[in-house]
Every structure is written in structure tokens, then in C-alpha cells.
């Protein structure tokens, strides 16, 4: 007979195995789904997993998608560690794209070598500002951070749409809701010829390392971990919850803002209404899949980027709606949460006779 038994100690093996198990189950789910709609499951697996990494161009595109996912996920990992339920990476990313683009357009005819740094800084500050508002409302007025950050996502989206229809619209763009193309002076340099891999991806990888360093090697990171694990104990130790909340939120906002401005000054090269295909929301899943660990987030972001690529390819090659990506993301998180049950529990095979 199989019984569920509580473990005396959380299993550290399951903590690592659970994301891998969840990914495997999601792929099995994908095969079943694809066969259900009359597509070959092996072809589906090929398109989702192998084709995105099959040639150097696709690998480059995978990195282009990994950049914003990773930047957002590193910040979110620290937030969730500190029990700050920031769902607002999407809005912070859009705010960064908007603020950065405004500055990039200001420098459109300039040769100044400050143009790119100023543009990136504007993106970072805009993201921080967008994170600061819900943080302030939570700490000062006790409002629910989950809901305010989500509302700020929508507000950022409409603000961006308003801007590309109004003040930031290209006057020579035939009325399309897009900004003018940025000048080369404000574009992130491309690192490898014949790919779109840009400097923003280096920022993302560095952010993962910085996040890891803060969390694992500094007293601040120690405070964040204690705060998340046992809030009363953290307060007893004299750690300031307010200070930590501000720090993790501003850090996350800065990274998400950088992700946004890196998209507009990187692969896109102008401000458009659909800057992000939901990177800020997917980053929540990346953060979880990476076990709220900044280095784990790097691996998880690679997987998520492959999934995004796979979704694009499935649409092109098999005519499957691209929405399948967001469905797989939801399923992945379901499986992850279900597998996490076995961190604290186990199946015990007992002989009925001994009962």
C-alpha cells in the first residue's frame, strides 16, 4: 500500500529534482496535447526543444529572449525571498522602456558619448520609480502589494500606448503608433556579427551573478533570507523590514527597467506598443523554477527562452497558436508546485500486513 508521509526534514534532493521533474512532465503534457490536436509528438518535441538550439542564429535569438527574462527574474527572486510579492516586473519593464525611449529620442540627433549611458540610466530610474510607488503604498498605507503592482502593470501599458500614439510618435511615421528609429548612438552594441546578441544580455548575466553575491555573500542577503524564512525572528534580530523591502523592490525595479530599455535600444531599436510578450509575468515562473536563486534563474531563463523560441517556431512550422507558450508556462508552474509537495512529504510503501 502506498501512503503519503510527512518527511521529518525537507528533502534537499527534491528541491533540485522538482524543477527538472516539472519540466519533464510539462514536455509529456505537450506531447499529449500535440497528439490530441493531430500533430506528431516527436515533431512537437523537436520544434519546442531542439530546433531553438539547432543553429547559431536560433541560439542567438534564444539569448535575446533570455536577457529580459533573466533581468526580471533575478530581481523577483530577491523580492520573493523577502516575502515581497512583486507581480509588477511587467509594468516596471514597460516603464523602463518608456522612460529610456523618451531620453533616446531626445538624443536622436546627438553625437554625445553620454547618449547611451543616459538612456540606460533613464530606463533604470523609470523602472525603479514604477517599483517605488507600490512599495510606498504598501509600507505607508498597508495596501496589498500583489494587487497594486498588477494595477501598475496595466497603468504602465496604457501610458506606453498613449505615448506612442501621442508625444513619442514618429512625426514621419505615417501615423503608425511607433516612435522614430533611435540613432545608432543610443543603440546597444551587438556583440557577435550576424546575430542580435547585444550588450543587454551581458547585463543580464552580470545581474544574476550580482544577485547571487548579494544573497549568498553579504550580510544584506543574510537578512533577506532570514526575513523570508522567519519574519518574527528577523525582527527580533533587529533587521529592518522596511529597509529590506525598499532595497529588494528598488533592485527588482532597476533590473526590470534595464530589461525594458535594453529591449527598445537593443533588438527593437524604437518604442513600439508591444515591447514585451509578457516577459515580466514569465519571469515569475523563471524565478520559481530557479528556486528563487539568482544562479538558478540563469538556467531557468534559458529554458523559458527556449520555450518562447519553440512557441514561435511551432507557429511558423506547425501553425500552432503562439499562445501555447503561456499555457505551457502555467502548466509548468502547476507541475512545479505539485512536485514541491514531495520536498516535505514522501510516498511510503508499507506492507498492509504490518498495519
Amino acid at each position, binding site marked *: 500500500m502506498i501512503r503519503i508521509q*510527512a518527511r521529518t526534514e525537507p528533502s534537499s534532493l527534491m528541491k533540485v529534482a522538482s524543477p527538472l521533474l516539472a519540466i519533464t512532465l510539462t514536455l509529456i503534457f505537450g506531447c499529449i496535447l500535440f497528439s490530441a490536436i493531430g500533430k506528431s509528438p516527436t515533431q512537437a518535441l523537436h520544434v519546442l526543444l531542439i530546433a531553438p538550439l539547432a543553429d547559431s542564429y536560433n541560439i542567438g535569438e534564444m539569448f535575446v529572449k533570455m536577457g529580459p527574462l533573466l533581468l526580471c527574474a533575478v530581481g523577483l527572486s530577491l523580492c520573493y525571498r523577502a516575502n515581497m*510579492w512583486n*507581480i509588477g516586473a511587467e509594468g516596471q519593464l514597460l516603464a523602463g522602456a518608456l522612460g529610456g525611449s523618451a531620453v533616446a529620442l531626445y538624443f536622436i540627433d546627438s553625437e554625445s558619448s553620454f547618449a547611451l549611458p543616459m538612456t540606460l540610466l533613464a530606463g533604470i530610474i523609470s523602472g525603479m520609480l514604477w517599483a517605488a510607488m507600490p512599495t510606498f*503604498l504598501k509600507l505607508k*498605507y*498597508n*495596501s*496589498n502589494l*500583489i*494587487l*497594486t503592482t*498588477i*494595477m*501598475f502593470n*496595466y*497603468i504602465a501599458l*496604457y*501610458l506606453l*500606448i*498613449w505615448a506612442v*500614439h*501621442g508625444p513619442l510618435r514618429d512625426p514621419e511615421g505615417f501615423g503608425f503608433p511607433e516612435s522614430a528609429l533611435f540613432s545608432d548612438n543610443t543603440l546597444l552594441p551587438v556583440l557577435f556579427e550576424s546575430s542580435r546578441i547585444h550588450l543587454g544580455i551581458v547585463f543580464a548575466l552580470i545581474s544574476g551573478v550580482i544577485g547571487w553575491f548579494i544573497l549568498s555573500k553579504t550580510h544584506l542577503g543574510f537578512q533577506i533570507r532570514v526575513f523570508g524564512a522567519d519574519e518574527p525572528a528577523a525582527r527580533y534580530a533587529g533587521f529592518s523590514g522596511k529597509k529590506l523591502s525598499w532595497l529588494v523592490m528598488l533592485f527588482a525595479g532597476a533590473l526590470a527597467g534595464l530589461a525594458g530599455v535594453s529591449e527598445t535600444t537593443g533588438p527593437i531599436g524604437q518604442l513600439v506598443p508591444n515591447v514585451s510578450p509578457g516577459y515580466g*509575468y514569465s519571469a*515569475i*515562473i523563471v524565478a*520559481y523554477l530557479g528556486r528563487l536563486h539568482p544562479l538558478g534563474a540563469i538556467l531557468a531563463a534559458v529554458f523559458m527562452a527556449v520555450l518562447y523560441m519553440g512557441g514561435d517556431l511551432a507557429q511558423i512550422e506547425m501553425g500552432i*497558436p503562439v*499562445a*501555447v*507558450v*503561456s*499555457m*505551457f*508556462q*502555467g*502548466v509548468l*508552474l*502547476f507541475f512545479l*508546485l*505539485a512536485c*514541491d*509537495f514531495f520536498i*516535505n512529504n514522501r510516498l511510503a510503501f508499507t506492507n498492509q500486513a504490518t498495519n
Partner: protein
Amino acid sequence: MDSDLIVQILFAAIKTGTPLLFIALGEVICEKSGTLNLGQEGMMLMGAVVGFLAAYGTGSAGLGVLAAMLMGALMSMIFAVLVLHLGANQVATGLALTIFGTGLSAFIGSGVVGQTIQGFQPIAIPFLSDIPFLGRILFNHDILVYFSFVMTFALIYIVNKTRIGLILKAVGENPHAANAIGIKVLRVRYLAVMFGGIMAGVSGAYMSLVYTPMWVENMTAGRGWIALALVVFASWRVGRIMLGAYLFGLASIMHLVLQGLGWSISPNLLAMLPYVATVIVMVIISADRFKEKLLAPRSLGKPFDPRNMA
């Protein structure tokens, strides 16, 4: 502004507030049992697309609503199993449900984008619709709006005056005490979550069968999230949810009001209004920490594991 325009605006506020009312009624029952389901948006989108597909396929809007209810219930059961049985984090599970529902609804609805159907027609209630002013605002709607009226008053009665309401509140306030007197805590929570799913389904069906009536990806535009704020706004009281839903409905159609006043503001800026209003309302309501602690169900968001009962 003439009285005709005021009638039109208030009529539209009720119509716009109705999907919020449905979904928030479901969520308040769910939260009263101590379970916070952030998957509202995903369940609502699934209700919208399945309701539309069923109505499109069968030609019957009524069957569409039934299918949407069933879908909402199914979606909520994914959440219930993970959260109630496997003790998964409620916030993460709810988010997963929303992400999943957003994707799945776009996936299965991709074939019918832009198609139109014959939705519900307005039914003027005899006598009541003849009441000057109010009759035209309240009693000239489609059948789902009347259903939302009935549901609101039924729930006010059930929550406040019946044994079922008492059990629900006991489970949400103190599950251990409820368990001790023999109430099956998890069963009550399962049912409450399922009720939330059914109402989210109806709410979605209202969007795709009455309000637009068609299916567009992401057509709920954050209403599932606004409904969560609405529950806080209503201080977890059923009656106030109705008031809140119509106020939010009014905020969503402010462009009509401003046009009536002859102002011209960019529609994209006005589109922010419901979300800005939600933030402002939450700040005002939650600022009094003591009051919120007093009003929110005490075990909200906390897992209950019957195995831990000694």
C-alpha cells in the same frame, strides 16, 4: 447633462459592473472560507472562451453560460487540489492558474476570433421597467443582469442568516475550531473554491456573450484582478460588493461621461482610470490596518492540514 444621458450612463455602469459583480461574488465566498484564489482572471478568460465556443457551436447563449460555469468549476478544481491537498502556496498557484488560463483561452479560441453571435437580448420586466428613471436603469437588462441581482441577494441571505453561512465563516475565521466541532474544513473550502470558479465562468460568459459579444484574446483586461481589489473594498461584505462593482463600472465608462460634459481626453489615458481608481480605493481602504485586520477572514491565505490536528 440631460436626464436621458444620465440614465444611459447609469444603465451602462450596471452593465459594465455586472461581470465584476459576478466574479467578485464568487471570490468573496472563496475568501470567506480562508482561500485566496488569484486565478480569477484565468478562470474568467476560460469562461469567456468556452461560453463563446459553446454558444457559437450550438446557437444557444444559455448553453454557453452553462458551459462557462462548468469550465470555471473545472479550472478552480486545479487550484483546489494544489492548494488544499498538496499545500501549495496560494499566491503562486493562483498566478499559475491565471497564466495557464490566459494561454489556454487564446489557444482554443484562436479559430473564432472576430466571429459574432446572437447574445442575450434585453428583457424589460413588466411594471418595474415602467418606473420613471429607475425602471430604465435597472429593469431593462438581459437575463444575466437579473441573475446577478438574484445571486447578490441570495448570497447576502445565505452568508448572514443561514447555517451554511455560519459554517463558511467558521472555516475562514478559525479552521481548527471548525474542525474540532466536526466541520469538514477542506470540503467546505473545496466547495467555496468551486463556487468561485463557477461565478468566474459566468462572469467570463457575460463578457463574451453579452458585453461585446465576441471573443478576443485577453478580453477581460484585468477584471479578474480588479474583482480581487473589489473584495477588499467591500470589506468582505456581500452587499457592498454590488455597490463597488457598479462604481467600478462607472469608472470604466468615464469616457462616456466626459464626452457628455464635452471634455476631450485621450482614450488611452482614460483607459487607465479603472486601474488608477483601484489603486486609490485600496490605499484608502487598507490604510486603517486595524480595521482591515478586523474585517479580513482570519485564516485567509493560510493552509490547513488536517494531519496536523492532534
